[in-house]
């Protein structure tokens, strides 16, 4: 099992590098992390690791992941201000679930991908650092 972790990490960073390379205009705004290795035991997580943060849009995610289990856009007055998030439910058996959380920035591109275990802390798979908005 442990032997798969470097492969996954490489995949994440490889995809990230690809997306940055293909979108050089925003490349300077993005940095990449993988806070902890996530074992791709389930299909949603495998698919989530394919998400090109900073490039993929809602239609891309719908094609890759299917229809989300839950979505949210909690913008108050300006819907584009905070973007939105989609969540996917993973049935891990034995009554346990986890979630894949995909957040979009105000441009409609993925800004964060995280996995949340039941009752657990989100593990960020990848994110795009943006300049903070202020108002």
């Amino acid at each position, binding site marked *: 099992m442990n032997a798969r972790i470097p492969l996954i990490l490489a995949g994440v960073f490889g995809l990230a590098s690809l997306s940055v390379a293909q979108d050089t205009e925003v490349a300077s705004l993005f940095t990449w992390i993988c806070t902890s290795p996530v074992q791709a035991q389930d299909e949603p997580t495998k698919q989530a690791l394919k998400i090109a943060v900073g490039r993929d849009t809602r239609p891309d995610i719908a094609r890759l992941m299917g229809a989300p*289990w839950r979505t949210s856009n909690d913008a*108050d007055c300006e819907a584009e201000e905070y973007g*939105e998030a989609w969540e996917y439910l993973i049935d891990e058996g034995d009554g346990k679930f986890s979630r894949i959380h995909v957040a979009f920035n105000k441009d409609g591109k993925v800004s964060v991908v995280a996995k949340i275990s039941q009752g657990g802390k989100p593990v960020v798979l990848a994110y795009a650092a943006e300049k903070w908005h202020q108002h």
Partner: protein
Amino acid sequence: MFPNKNKLFRQTLVSVLPTISVSAGAFLFGAYALAQSYPPYGPDVPLAHFDHGKRQHLTPPPPNLMCPVLSPTCQDVRTAQSEWNTELLGYDSLDGRSTYQPLVVHQGNRYIAYMAHHAGCAINRLNLVNEVNGTSLVDVTDPQHPVYLTHIPNSPSDGATCTGSLDAAGNQMVHVCGGDMLPSNSRAEAERKRGHFYMLRTNGNASGQPGTESHEVWDVTNPKSPTLLKTIDSGATNTHKDWWECYSGVAYLVANDGTASSVNPESAPGWQQSGSTQHLKIYNLHDPANPEYIRDFGFVGQQPTATGNAIEGLVTPPTGIHGPISAGNRIYAAYGVGANGVVQILDRNKVLNGCKGPGASPNCAKSPTQSEMLAPQLGWFTLPGTSLQGGHTSFPIYGEEDGRPRNLILMTSEEGGNECTAGSAPHGAWLYDVTDEAHPKYIAEDPNDPARTMMDVPNGFDNKWIGIVPGNGVPDNHCGTTNCSQSGIYGATVTPQDAPVGTAPNNFCNQGARFGIHSSTELFYPPYYGRLAILAWFTGGLRVFDIRNPDQPRAVGYFIPAPNDNGCGPKGGPSPGPGCTMPNTGRDGHTVNAIHTNNVEVDDRGLIYIADRAGTGMHIIKLTGQAAAAGNGNDHDHDDDHGHGDDNGHGHGNDH
């Protein structure tokens, strides 16, 4: 039940039982009728009693933490459920939908919670259908056992779908009026409305595409099976926080008309705003099936014909309105939301009738002149820190002190950045003395820090502010104090993340989401009206301040919900899902599924309802201890008020 020796007591009790029952019934009905007489349901404005009490300032206890000490084996930075002079009575997950406004209505012999949702989609537990967020109706008659009645999805007219754009979705705002309270122009109208209840809600938010957003009125007489009655203001965009006077029918709708719309004859294009692009569209909805357009209104400089620099306010064009509150013959309008805040005090009659007189300009209703914009205005003021703070909620509190009138506005800004963004202001709540409406005065400043008010929530769990540096807002002389430009801002290093593990101080700025003020309650119910400021503080949860001495407000209670780690089922259980609190992301990808208390409201039983922006659900809370004592005014042994602290909520005849 009673021993023989208590026979006399038993006979006496039996003989007086009918009297007790009748009296109790009369009392309860009286309380109901009294509660219904206050804005927005009735025209009677309560009268608060303010005093000079030197009450003990209390230090809030630190909240409970998921991990009391961060370590390699315990890295959860979130707060656990924390109560200070509060008690959780009831809960509903609301199916994990992000929620903006809670409103609880005493509807017949039931209490119905109308929970207005942000945009999104979730599975309706009742039909297992994935529905676009709209409005959840919950029977909270028994607050310990809420019953989820129905979910009214967002109307499809705005084009929102669960896999497409959600920009136009959501029904964030809600008001409810009874047909028996709304006035009628004819006996037939009164008969048609008798016994009915009507819900006004926004439909869609900010698509920016005229023709897709609107307001709606639903007949919610049977709250389990509401029916759409009328779509109003179709063609609007940027709907937001409305106000509906049930005693008059006048509805102050917050929206904008981007361009002329053929579907709405009341479309008034060309209004100009900075920031949030919305102004007032005023209707009379006494007969909700037949709306009567009155006029559009806003801050001078927003009217379509305005040119050049704005003559009032902080920017050109002035910032858009967040929401109005009317009481008596006044309207209090807050502009700017989270920046460039301006507050306006208006003569309600002049607003409503200003375009009806013989001297009104031909297009006054949709495009008033500058003088017609200024005519109803009695006063205006900016907020401390000027550009750094915005006008979000402006709640009037009418009162007396030492036998003389003393009127206040409880003001809030809105925090906008996650995790206390460096360089932004900690958005605050203030009290303004508006007894002299032309010269509002900021009171309750922290004497040790002109940038702060005494109604504040430190971001450290040890009650110490960290990372705050003085602000330097633009020069301004309209904020009611000598330090208009002063408002603290977060320094560059304010947000210690949870790495390196075990060394970072834990605090409210480390929860992924926003920390700061958002809103206050807006209903005028005794006994808390004029005694307590009840506020929603995002990751800081519900916050309660004693304002009986408004020059010396003091913290008396808080409630911070636990994040929902279990699921979105009826009781937060696992059916379905692994937890419903939505994560937010702060700096450097710091993502936390923490609570995010968005709005708060009271009912006429003194219960408090909070709604969670992160989908954590609805919490029903009771005040206890010192918060309850302050709210009920029965702790006057601890002040120098000499027993005069229990007379609010029963005065009428305020001349505003």
